[in-house]
């Protein structure tokens, strides 16, 4: 007996017309006046997230201050059949928080209270609007910190981190968001409270904690989060190594892992990327190197000394022309400042840039870099490469000018070519930024119709009405047929399993 497909599996977010005035009136009755924004000027702030190329104006934006108000918003939206897009700090890079034109943009920014830090149990319970970095700052007096550190950690919110399963430069050793969250309190579209995970290390039944993490706002709205805190390492030191070719740097990465080392961070930048950031933050990067690696060791002073020695030996044996070990904390932070400024540096070089996020097996790094170099010629656009090399997570930054329609189209094609290559090399189209609206077409490449149907079944298990972040993350059957039509490979029609509309 096959499952009936939920309606939203076949077609994307087409909703009956929402009666805007009645919806706004109900929201105004339930929330403080300054929590409801519906004037054109005020709504402009919410048009897009960090992926600025995709913009939509919602009917209305709401900024509730309490869980009860969030609950009220959900119930009102359900009554009106209005789609809801939840938003944290709006730093996401895949358009996951792009509003729906017929719906409500639900900003969680005002739920920003650190509820409790339990120093002995090493946990922090916070509201979703709390900034990632603020958790570590609040935990620091107890000698503790929150490990996942996306580059946007000064601004991004923990709620958004959970929704996207955010990573960072230290997740090779310390894991992604999913490895560092213990408990969630979430509201279903019906306004029902779900307590997911627990204060313990596991919970009975299915692992909904893992399912909700990275679910991109499609399943529930998170109102409280308990994260695991770790003791701050006594010491961290970073090696900066220069290479004459990106392939050699890629090989050195595999060699470090093969030697049984798990560095706290293992990052690769190519020459165009180092040149761009050096100009911007003066991190002291060598400009003559074709690629650099940043390799960090943390732990006790003894283990750091031992590990740095082993790391240096492997790097030199695999073609490093120069190794520089950070002498003190300020130098270490300067090494990282360059890496963390890669995106803004790209923004200084070019009116627009497009950041990709595929992950490939580490051993394919060299091959992938060669392919990207060839694509720069094919599409006539420049690309800076910064990689979380230890995880095989690539962030090629394609530079273009969105005002030039031809460049925009070439950038889009360049990006899709990279993602298709990623899948072909045995990888995935998104390592940490999420699918959102940006990569929704390429999802058709990575998942079969059966797999996507199951995703829709999971969504329907939480949101039978398809109101939470519609038309994001999981492409409808219709969309994949359309996407396939745009990308015909060698005269062969892709996805012959799909009905054509």
């Amino acid at each position, binding site marked *: 007996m096959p499952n009936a497909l939920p309606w939203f599996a076949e077609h994307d977010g087409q909703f009956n017309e929402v009666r805007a005035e009645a919806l706004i009136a109900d929201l105004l009755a339930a929330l403080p006046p300054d929590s409801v924004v519906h004037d054109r000027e005020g709504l402009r702030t919410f048009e897009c997230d960090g992926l600025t190329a995709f913009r939509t104006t919602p009917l209305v934006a709401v900024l509730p201050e309490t869980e009860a108000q969030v609950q009220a918003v959900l119930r009102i939206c359900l009554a009106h059949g209005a789609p809801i897009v939840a938003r944290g700090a709006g730093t996401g890079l895949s358009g996951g928080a792009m509003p729906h034109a017929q719906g409500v943009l639900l900003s969680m920014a005002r739920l920003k209270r650190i509820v409790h830090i339990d120093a*002995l149990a090493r946990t922090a319970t916070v509201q979703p609007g709390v900034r990632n970095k603020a958790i570590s700052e609040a935990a620091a007096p107890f000698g503790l910190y929150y490990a996942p550190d996306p580059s946007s950690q000064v601004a991004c919110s923990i709620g958004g981190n959970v929704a996207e399963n955010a990573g960072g430069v230290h997740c090779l050793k310390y894991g992604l968001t999913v490895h560092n969250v213990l408990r969630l309190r979430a509201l279903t579209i019906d306004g029902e409270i779900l307590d997911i995970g627990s204060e313990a290390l596991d919970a*009975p039944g299915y692992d909904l904690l893992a399912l909700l993490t990275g679910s991109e706002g499609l399943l529930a709205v998170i109102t409280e989060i308990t994260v695991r805190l770790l003791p701050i390492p006594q010491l961290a030191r970073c090696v900066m190594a220069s290479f004459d070719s990106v392939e050699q740097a890629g090989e050195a990465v595999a060699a470090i*892992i093969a030697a049984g080392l798990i560095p706290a961070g293992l990052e690769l930048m190519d020459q165009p990327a180092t040149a761009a950031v050096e100009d911007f933050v003066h991190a002291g990067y060598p400009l003559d190197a074709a690629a650099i690696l940043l390799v960090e060791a943390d732990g006790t002073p003894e283990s750091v000394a031992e590990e740095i020695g082993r790391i240096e030996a492997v790097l030199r044996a695999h073609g490093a022309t120069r190794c520089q070990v950070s002498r003190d904390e300020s130098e270490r932070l300067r090494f990282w400042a360059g890496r963390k400024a890669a995106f803004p540096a790209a923004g200084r070089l070019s009116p627009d840039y497009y950041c990709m996020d595929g992950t490939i097996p580490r051993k394919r790094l060299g091959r992938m870099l060669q392919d990207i170099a060839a694509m720069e010629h094919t599409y006539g656009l420049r690309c800076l490469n910064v990689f979380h090399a230890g995880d095989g997570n690539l962030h090629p930054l394609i530079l273009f000018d969105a005002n030039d329609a031809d460049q925009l189209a070439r950038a889009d094609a360049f990006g899709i070519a990279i993602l298709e290559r990623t899948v072909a090399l045995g990888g995935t189209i*998104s390592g940490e930024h999420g*699918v959102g609206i940006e990569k929704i077409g390429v999802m058709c490449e990575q998942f079969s119709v059966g797999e996507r149907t199951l995703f829709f079944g999971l969504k*329907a298990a*939480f949101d039978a009405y398809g109101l939470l972040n519609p038309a994001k993350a999981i492409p409808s059957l219709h969309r994949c047929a359309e996407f396939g039509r745009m990308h015909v490979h060698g005269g062969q029609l892709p996805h012959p399993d799909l009905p054509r509309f």
Partner: protein
Amino acid sequence: MTGDIEDALVEQVRVACDGRTPLRIRGGGSKDFLAQSLAGDMLDTSKHRGIVAYEPSELVITARAGTPLAEIEAALAEHGQMLAFEPPHFGPATLGGCVASGLSGPARATSGAVRDFVLGVKIIDGQARVLRFGGTVMKNVAGFDVSRLMTGAWGTLGVMLELSIKTLPAAPATETLVLDVPAASVVHWMNRLAGRPLPISATFWHRGVLHVRLSGAATAVAAARREIGGDALAADAAASLWQQVREQKHRFATDAAPLWRLSVRSTADLPQGTDMALEWLGAQRWWGTSLSPDQVRAVAQAAGGHATAFRGAPRGYSVFHPLTSAMLAVQRRIKQAFDPAGIFNPGRIYAEL
């Protein structure tokens, strides 16, 4: 015949699906003791075995579900690697059963659980479709995290065919310290220890004796030993201790009937006068008690966690901690999405799933 028997397994599921016949999915049968019910025609995954791919420098092994856990561990050990969650075997365990049961060993509190290391799965769903989720790479946020959802689902959502698991290098040095710590202060002691940046890889406390295992660079282990104090256990005695704790051959388990597993907030007070064994820096507690299931569950719940009737459960009570009605409703719908005919391991964990 052993090796790749995917087609035969798919066919068996198709027939069961058409006839709406329940299937009891079984690898090595080593966790049969832990079940609410074992019902249905046997679907034997133990012949679907073999390591499909293992590249040490990629930190990932892909193997068929019926591959013996011991075979996986031996392959990893040859390259100085390990399953960092140290899964208990409890008999002739398979990789599929290890992931389906989601049980982790002594290193869990510091290294992570089974679910933290599952990177990808290939499954047969309840409509006999072969589906793949996740992959072999460390970071992957495309699509819902079905791989981790399969972990600890006890085969109620699908038949796992193949799994990709993250591996880690084994620590170059390890040492186990023995300290006398009374029951009154052990919880505080363990949590204070956990808050310090030390290379702790396991803790076990029973009847006034605390064992702390350190794993890492040789210099770091030596420094931590000086800082923590206590006596070092000989290497073979230490290996045997952790093996006994993991496999429940230690007297904390063999002397107890029934044996309850309490998974709780690590800082929860130890109820006075109870004979509990503590692991996972205080977060996992083993309790041999004749208190009623309701009483044991109340203790676990008050401590922020849940209780499983691990061995010798009284008949007629739920082995796994009951779910709230809101949670059960969601989980039932998830089950429905994977297995609409309800053929996979019905009632294995809850009557409703």
